[in-house]
C-alpha cells in the first residue's frame, strides 16, 4: 500500500459526508446505499465514523459530473477515467467525483458504483494507489463480491488511523499471489493457443512464448462472468476451445472469448451427480482423451464421441505411480504431463509411465 506524500490524514475520526447530486443511472436509494456501504467498509477496520449531511459543507463532498466539472481536472467521457478523489485536507480535500459519462450499476453489468466508491473513498481517507493487484486501492477497475478490502488495504488504513476498537469479523479479499512464494500452489493450468494460463485464487498468470515475465491479471477483468475461483481447465485444440471448470459448472472459451451456451453442468460430460467439482483436467492430444481428476480417482472422456470411457473411474495411485494421489492441476506439454499438488510439481512421462522430475510448483513461473 501507499499513502500520499506527508501521509495526509484527517485530524479527527468523526467525519461528515454529503452527496451533492445523483446519477440518473441508479435509484437515489441505491446510490445512498452504495456510498454508505463503501464508507462502512473502511469504518469497519478503523475508528472512523461517518455522518451524512444534507446541507452545508461536509468533509467529503460527493458528486457526479462530466468532462470539466469544476475542479480543472476533467473526466474523459465513457470508460478510461471513472472517478477521482482528493486526499484529506481543507476545501477540496476529501472530495470525491464520479464520471457521469460512465454507466453506473449495482451489479457487475457495467461499472459497479460500490466498488468504485470504496476505492475513491480510500483516497479521501488518505490511501494512495497500491501496486498489489489484489488490493482495492489498485488503480485499475475490477469487480468482486463480498468485503472489498484486501489485507493490504487494511494494513494501509490502519497505519494511518489504527484499528477499530470494536472490530467486526470481515474476510478480506486475498492479496495478489506472489509467483515466487515457495509454498505457492495452483488452482488450474491450461494451454490457450500456445500460451499457458495458470489460475490461482481470483487471478491468472499468462505465460506467452514471447514474454520473459508472467503477466498477472484478475480473472474478472478478462472474463467478468467467470467465477472468482477456477478448479480445473484444459484446452481441446481440435475445436479451438478451452474448458474452465468451477464447481458443477463448465465454461468454454474460444481464444479469450466466452462461448455462448455455457456454462453447462459437468454431469453432462457423463460424471455422476455425486461429483461436485473437478480437481484437475488435461487433454492428451496423442490419444484424443481428456482426463478428469476428482479426489483420488480419474475419468477418461473421449472428445471425438463425447462420451465417458468405460472402466472409469480408476485409481490415480494405481495408474500414475510415484506421485500424490490427488492433484490441484495438470497440464500436458511436449509429450509430458505436469502434475501439481500443493507446492510440488511432478514431471511425468506419459509414454514411459514414470515420474521424471519433481520440482517446486513455482518453477513453472520461472522462479
Amino acid at each position, binding site marked *: 500500500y*501507499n499513502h500520499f506524500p506527508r501521509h495526509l490524514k484527517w485530524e479527527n475520526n468523526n467525519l461528515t459526508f454529503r452527496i451533492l447530486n445523483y446519477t440518473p443511472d441508479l435509484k437515489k436509494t441505491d446510490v445512498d446505499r452504495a456510498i454508505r456501504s463503501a464508507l462502512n467498509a473502511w469504518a469497519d477496520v478503523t475508528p472512523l465514523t461517518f455522518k451524512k449531511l444534507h446541507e452545508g459543507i461536509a468533509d467529503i463532498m460527493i458528486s457526479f459530473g462530466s468532462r470539466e466539472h469544476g475542479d480543472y481536472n476533467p473526466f474523459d467521457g465513457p470508460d478510461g*477515467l471513472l472517478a*477521482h478523489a482528493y486526499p484529506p485536507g481543507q476545501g477540496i480535500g476529501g472530495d470525491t467525483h464520479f464520471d457521469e459519462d460512465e454507466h453506473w450499476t449495482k451489479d457487475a453489468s457495467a461499472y459497479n458504483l460500490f466498488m468504485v466508491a470504496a476505492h475513491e473513498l480510500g483516497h479521501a481517507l488518505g490511501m494512495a494507489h497500491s*501496486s498489489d493487484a489484489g488490493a482495492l486501492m489498485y*488503480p485499475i477497475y475490477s469487480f468482486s463480491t463480498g468485503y472489498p478490502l484486501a489485507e493490504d488495504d487494511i494494513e494501509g488504513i490502519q497505519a494511518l488511523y489504527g484499528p477499530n476498537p470494536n472490530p467486526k469479523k470481515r474476510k478480506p479479499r486475498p492479496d495478489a499471489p506472489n509467483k515466487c512464494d515457495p509454498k505457492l500452489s495452483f488452482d488450474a493450468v491450461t494451454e490457450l493457443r500456445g500460451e499457458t494460463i495458470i489460475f490461482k485464487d481470483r487471478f491468472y498468470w499468462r505465460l506467452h512464448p514471447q514474454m520473459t515475465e508472467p503477466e498477472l491479471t484478475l480473472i474478472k477483468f478478462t472474463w467478468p462472468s467467470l467465477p472468482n475461483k477456477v478448479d480445473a481447465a484444459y484446452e481441446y485444440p481440435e475445436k479451438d476451445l478451452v474448458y474452465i471448470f468451477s464447481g458443477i459448472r463448465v465454461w468454454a472459451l474460444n481464444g479469450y472469448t466466452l462461448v455462448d451456451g455455457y456454462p453447462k453442468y459437468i454431469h453432462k460430460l457423463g460424471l455422476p451427480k455425486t461429483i461436485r467439482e473437478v480437481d484437475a483436467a488435461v487433454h492428451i492430444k496423442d490419444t484424443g482423451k481428456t482426463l478428469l481428476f476428482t479426489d483420488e480417482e480419474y475419468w477418461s472422456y473421449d472428445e471425438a464421441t463425447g462420451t465417458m470411457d468405460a472402466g472409469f473411474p480408476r485409481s490415480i495411485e494405481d495408474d500414475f505411480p510415484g506421485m500424490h494421489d490427488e492433484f490441484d492441476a495438470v497440464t500436458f506439454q511436449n509429450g509430458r504431463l505436469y502434475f501439481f499438488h500443493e507446492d510440488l510439481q511432478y514431471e511425468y512421462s506419459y509414454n514411459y509411465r514414470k515420474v521424471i522430475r519433481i520440482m517446486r510448483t513455482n518453477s513453472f513461473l520461472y522462479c
Partner: protein
Amino acid sequence: LPLTGKTDDHLLAEKYLRRFYGLPTGLRGRQASSSDFQNKIQQMQRFFKLQITGNLDDNTLEVMKQPRCGVPDVGE
C-alpha cells in the same frame, strides 16, 4: 484485439504518463523529452509489475487502456 496506429498509441501514452506519472508538459529538448518519457514508462511498468523495458510495448499499452481511477499512481 486490433491495435490502433503507432502515433495514436504514443499520444495515448503521453497523455497517460502526464496525468498519472507527472510527465512534464510543454516543449522540451529532444533528448531530455525522450529520456523523461522512458523513465516515466519504466516507473509505470515497475508499479504494474510489468517487464521493465522503458518501451511502449503491447503489455504496457494494454494496461494504459484499461478503465481506472483518475488519481495519480505516484503518491509515494
